């Protein structure tokens, strides 16, 4: 079997990214949408770590920063979700239409 190159990792990351985008765009449940966002962030992380293998360790430091950002984002988003659920008793994204005309 062929040797694993950086391109292989990039293809896996691209697949995860696209699956995450599909989840964000098509699902109605807000929790699943947040999980899809985590998938997207992980795809980016895989890209960064794969490239850090080619150059130097800075990519891994960036990956750690992205994990910290993901933690902050998840805490905020789930707080919003709980506040929203308390007001409207739903978790469906297409019923969040107060700003739509």
């Amino acid at each position: 079997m062929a040797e694993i190159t950086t391109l292989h990792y990039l293809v896996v990351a691209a697949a995860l990214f696209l699956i995450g985008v599909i989840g964000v765009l098509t699902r109605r449940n807000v929790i699943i949408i947040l999980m899809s966002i985590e998938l997207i962030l992980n795809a980016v992380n895989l890209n960064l770590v794969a490239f850090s293998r080619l150059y130097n360790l800075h990519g891994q430091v960036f990956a750690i920063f992205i994990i910290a950002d993901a933690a902050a984002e998840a805490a905020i988003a789930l707080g919003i979700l709980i506040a929203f659920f308390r007001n409207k008793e739903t978790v469906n994204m297409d019923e969040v239409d107060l700003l739509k005309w």
Partner: protein
Amino acid sequence: MMPVATTFFFYFLSIIAVVSAIVVITRKSPVHSALALITTLLSLAGLYLMLYAPFVAAVQIVLYAGGIMVLFLFVIMLVNLEKAQLEERFNKQWQVALIAVLTLGALLIFVFEKGRSVFPQTVTNFPENTNTQAIGLLLYRDYLMPFEIASLLLLVAIVGAVVMAKKRV
């Protein structure tokens, strides 16, 4: 210095990651999705290990699979999802979304095909036993300012989450 069975483990881990990512976005029950997402995160940690990033792999397991996913499961338990599980899973614009994503995928394949020659063919050989030390030095020397800003960000996130989840806003 090539580790044994690299190819096998790469395909094994990436197939697990991609399949459980698909499971994440297709299951009805959010708990099943969360468990599949944990599987994806763990196999990604394995891929990080294969890329000589043991510290990132450890942080991935401890912070993502341990911390963030517990937060998700807590919210799934807090929010009553019985009604949402009986409803339609996908929204009305899913065809348009699929077309958009396929276009994005074609673009990515095009870029990879065009740009694969610009990658350096040689990989850097990181010292294996001082990875954490090297990352610590980078974090506290070169990236000290972003590190402090990240801690501020986390503080703001904690305060914001508490304020938003409070009873009367």
